[in-house]
């Protein structure tokens, strides 16, 4: 895994987990890799993985069953989508609008592009 972003690694790992769940590699309700296994897979300090998992637990994307391991939450996909949506609205959309204004793009022009895509 390449960590190219400025973003903290534990957050990048959390996003990597989102990808695994969204593209169906990790299914809802399934047991996921342990902290150590994922650390070895991504070649990252296990403590960093632990922090990612803590974050994911807070977001209710995964759950920890004591003594058994970590599992994908039953409604993980919805949680991730709503989280992504929130991020999109709060961060990406304002930046997008800013650029639109900068290049003087009209709403109609954008609509045309959206329909084409």
């Amino acid at each position, binding site marked *: 895994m390449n960590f190219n972003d*400025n*973003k*903290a690694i534990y957050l990048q790992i959390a996003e990597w987990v989102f990808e695994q769940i969204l593209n169906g590699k990790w299914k809802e309700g399934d047991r996921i890799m342990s902290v*150590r296994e994922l650390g*070895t897979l991504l070649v*990252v*300090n*296990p*403590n*960093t993985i632990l922090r990612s998992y803590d974050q994911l637990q807070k977001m209710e994307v995964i759950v920890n069953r004591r003594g058994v391991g970590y599992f994908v939450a039953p409604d993980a996909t919805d949680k991730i989508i709503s989280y992504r949506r929130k991020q999109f609205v709060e961060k990406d959309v304002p930046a997008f609008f800013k650029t639109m204004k900068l290049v003087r793009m009209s709403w109609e022009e954008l609509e045309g592009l959206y329909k084409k895509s």
Partner: protein
Amino acid sequence: MIQLQNINFSYQKGRTIFDDLSLSLKGGQIYGLFGKNGAGKTTLLKIMAGLRFPQSGSSITLGQHAELRKAEMLKDLYFLQEEVYVPAISIRDYVKCYAPFYENFDNEQFDEYLHLFEIASMDDKLTALSHGQRKKVVISFALATNTKILLMDEPTNGLDIPSKGVFRKIMTMAANEERLILISTHQVRDLQFLIDGVVILDNGHILLNANADDITDKLCFKITDDTATDEPILYCEENLRGNLLVTENIHHIETKLDIELLFNAVMMNKERINELFNAKN
């Protein structure tokens, strides 16, 4: 697990290496020890292992005075030298010789690490192997001893490119909640994501001893096109990707720790770093 207190050290005729140095390290962490050439990184590891005796101050390792080199301490400490020494025996005999000294030595782990390093034959004489191959064997052995403390002096020096990757991988396998791993190195890029504690040694003192989370809490590491920022800049470097910046983290944005940038920032702003990180003391 390791407590250095007010250590003063100099070689018989030479200059002072450590001047009233104190450092405390705890288990469950992989520490990176950084410093310029001649800063005394190897000497510091040796003091922790009881191989060098400070002129004053105390070095407590696993609750024992390190310089007594008691068997109880040595059983739970492995010191990996930069230039590993191997006797003229086979790998199999090496294990027969030395594994019995370590109660938690794990043969399966050892075999797995050797396998990952692509060392196939246990019957090869160690002295007939190349320097890099010997080092791989001794690293595998060191990790398989499962000692509570593992001191590694430039472990990736002399390893070829694929082996460095293997090294990183097996380090994540060997790290656990109890173990204290201290890696002294110049090869920052090799260990970027392995390390969760950064210790910087300079001019006889510990300039910084902080957890990675602590560092990214207080400092920002970013690549930007413009350097316009309202945060105090500690270090700036230009390259093809843009400007690499280290700033104080006023807005509480979590960024990715870059140890090389951190090192340079610390070297250029020793006092400010000290204020930021040691305010409590």
